[in-house]
């Protein structure tokens, strides 16, 4: 990391992380990581992960992981946009996390219709340069809606209510531990 570049970025914007939005710096990062095979792991707890060796016999695993990453990226990014419209406030994170897991469960046992759509959108994703050229992907929210069962909706409602109640309860407990702001007159 070039210390001079960090100092200049800090002087310019007050945040060195803005380098991660500077195309020159980002492309330099890509070059550095390419030279190193993309291997960046550190820390003993990641030893097994870092030492896992890929060979041709694992090509099916690689393809499966890649497909899962892509289909989940497509579904979860749209799911987030959709759920943000529900205005759940502090219950969002827990509910969104649960919804992702419900969708994963459906992907593990897809209906024939869902399976067909997944194949079509992944084929399109491999070829498409941008979202404007992805007509099948524009159906993602409708697919999410089709995927969700009555039981799923009930589960999400329960998780949202639980998360909101927990946060409200934490706020009350926190307030109860605060020092009084002023003395009450006798």
């Amino acid at each position, binding site marked *: 990391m070039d210390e001079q570049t960090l100092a200049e970025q800090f002087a310019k914007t007050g945040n060195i992380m803005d380098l991660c939005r500077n195309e020159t710096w980002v492309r330099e990062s890509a070059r550095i990581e390419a030279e190193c095979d993309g291997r960046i792991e550190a*820390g003993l707890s990641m030893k097994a992960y870092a030492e896992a060796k890929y060979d041709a016999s*694992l090509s099916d695993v690689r393809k499966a992981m890649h497909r899962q990453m892509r289909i989940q990226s497509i579904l979860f990014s749209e799911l987030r946009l959709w759920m943000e419209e529900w205005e759940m406030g502090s219950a969002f994170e827990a509910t969104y996390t649960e919804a992702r897991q419900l969708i994963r469960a459906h992907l593990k046992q897809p209906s024939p219709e869902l399976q067909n759509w997944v194949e079509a959108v992944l084929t399109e994703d491999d070829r498409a340069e941008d979202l404007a050229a992805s007509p099948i992907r524009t159906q993602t929210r409708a697919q999410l809606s089709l995927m969700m069962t009555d039981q799923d909706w009930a589960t999400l409602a329960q998780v949202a209510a639980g998360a909101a109640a927990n946060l409200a309860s934490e706020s009350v407990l926190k307030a109860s531990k605060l020092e009084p702001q002023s003395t009450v007159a006798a």
Partner: protein
Amino acid sequence: MQQAIQLVTGAGNLVEALLCSMESRHLNDYQEVWQQFLEATNQPDQGWPWEYKLRQAQNDERFEAYAVEVEGFTQGLLFIETQWHRSGLPQRYRLVYIQAIASAPWNRISIEDPPYFFGVGRALLLFARRRSEQLGYQGRVGLHALPGSEGFYERANMPDYGPDSDKEGLIYFEYGATQYRDA
């Protein structure tokens, strides 16, 4: 914490990404998808190390965990300790210690060529330096690189302090103070 960043795809296109505090959803991505690679290669560590790390980060202020995500899916993870570790230098400066950092399997060229995304590692490393500045440690960051990753830290101009016998001989790298102050 949320920081908008950019990554580069294997095809050379810039994409929007998010560096944020690690949440349960990032752990789920690791367990449900990344971990398949470990299982397929019969690696001994079949536990879920990031589950423990996330719990530590949620319950102990010494620890912090972060994730990089693109389109809502986890592409990189970072776990740091912020209070107990000291510099390898005689002055024993306080620093941010990277206990674990990893990029998703499909971002490694030996697994996927071209890889799906470049830039996850350098963005997380830069973020660790920023946290060090914010904590008053002047940008000092230390880590033990795993075999095969040393080249990345050398190319990132991180000084190499040689093998550490306390850490299975892994090479210890440490950034010194930055030339600016952000504390």
